[in-house]
Each structure stands twice: as structure tokens, then as C-alpha cells.
């Protein structure tokens, strides 16, 4: 797919990875509010990224006061970087007449 990562290329996950790449850690509720996603949808997207090894998950606290934090892994950062470079490379391709 022209070097594009199919997992990251999906619009919601691309936005998530952009945020993860720009942060050391980000909390679930922040992502949910920022991306305007439901809890179940965001959970699904994050599970895909965590299962692929692109993000790590960490829970803090217990009960109602608990929170879930995510951060990008080294593998995820590399994959995101390659995906963005592939997008830039597509921009530089000559357009067929």
C-alpha cells in the first residue's frame, strides 16, 4: 500500500497516533473528548493499537477514580514516522497525465 501502514491509515487511528506521537502519555478521557468518540469506539481503536504493539496501556488508581493512560511504544513511533514519510513521498510523486 505504497508504504502506508493500513493500521495507522484508518482516520481515527491516524489521529490517535498523531496525538500519541506528540505526547509522553495521554489519558483515555482526554482522547475521548479530543476525538469525540464513544468509549466503546475508542476502546476498540486503542485495543487494535495495543495489540499491534504500537501503544502501551497503564491503569492508575482504583474504582471510580481510576484512569487509563496510553503511550506510544518505540515500535509505534517508528511505524507512525514511516507512515508520515510515506504520505510525504506520495505528495512528491509525479502525477500521471
Amino acid at each position: 500500500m505504497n508504504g502506508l501502514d493500513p493500521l495507522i491509515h484508518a482516520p481515527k487511528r491516524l489521529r490517535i497516533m498523531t496525538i500519541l506521537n506528540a505526547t509522553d502519555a495521554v489519558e483515555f478521557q482526554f482522547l475521548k473528548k479530543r476525538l469525540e468518540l464513544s468509549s466503546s469506539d475508542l476502546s476498540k481503536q486503542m485495543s487494535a493499537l495495543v495489540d499491534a504493539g504500537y501503544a502501551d496501556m497503564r491503569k492508575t488508581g482504583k474504582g471510580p477514580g481510576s484512569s487509563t493512560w496510553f503511550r506510544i511504544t518505540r515500535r509505534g513511533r517508528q511505524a507512525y514516522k514511516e507512515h508520515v514519510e510515506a504520505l510525504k513521498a506520495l505528495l512528491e510523486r509525479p502525477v500521471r497525465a
Partner: protein
Amino acid sequence: MTTPTPSSLLSEIEREQLALYVAQDSNGAPGWIWPVLGLGTALMLAVNDLESVVVSIVAVLLFAALLGGITAKLSERSGVQVRLSTMPPSLRRVLLWYWIPAGLLILGGGFLATFVVAHPLKFTIFGIGAGLVTGVGGWLTVRRYEARARSMAREAELSE
């Protein structure tokens, strides 16, 4: 539904990054943080005039605990810990233009107070100065950072 182009995707990535810094500041530090940090800095340094190693060590530990607690609380409150290395350079410059001079001022002042100046209240005077640099300087820097982030977001045609 049109297929996004590489150009539109890259623009979206840039907008998302800028929106992150604006969103981070909408959950920003409460106003009392800076006077507390300034006062904490001043007290931590001023107690050195008592010339008690134990008191000095306790003061440093208490200040470190205060700083750690505030940092953790702010991070929890905002829900995000932005990464300095991926921050837009113009935003990063706002922070560095405070941290580096403030750090040099405080280190220089500390050196002078410790080795050069002979005055019974040298650390108290130094502490007041450092407290102002921390409290007032920090508050001003955060305001500049927020204004810069909003300005960049407006330029990228975001609304927050």
C-alpha cells in the same frame, strides 16, 4: 464521501498536533500554582540563612515533594503529558526562553549567595528573587505559551 489525499491527511496531522496544545491549555494549571511555587522556592532558599544542614535538607525534600505533587496533579488534571521534542519549535522556544535564563539566574544567584556575598540574610534575599523568577516568570511564560498555541491554532484554522 471523498477519499482523503496525502496532502489533506498531512494537513490533518498538523492541525491535530496544534489542537493538542490548545486542548492541553484549556485544562491548564489553576492560578494558585504559581504563587505557591514562588513561595516554596523562596522558603526553600531562605532557610539556608539559619545555617542548619538538617533544616536545609528537610526544606529541599519538602520542596521536591511539593513540586512532584503539583506536577502529578497537573498531569492528571489535564489528561496529557506533551512531549517537548515533538512540540512545534516556536512553542518550545517560549518555554526554553524562560527555563534557560531562569535556571542560569537561580544558579548564578545561588553561587553568589554561597561563595561571594557576606550578609546575614543573603539567602533570604536570594530566595525572594528566585521566588519571583519562579512564580511571576512561570505565570508569564504559561500565558505566553497559551497565547502562542491559540495563535498557531487560529493560523491553522482551528476552533477550540
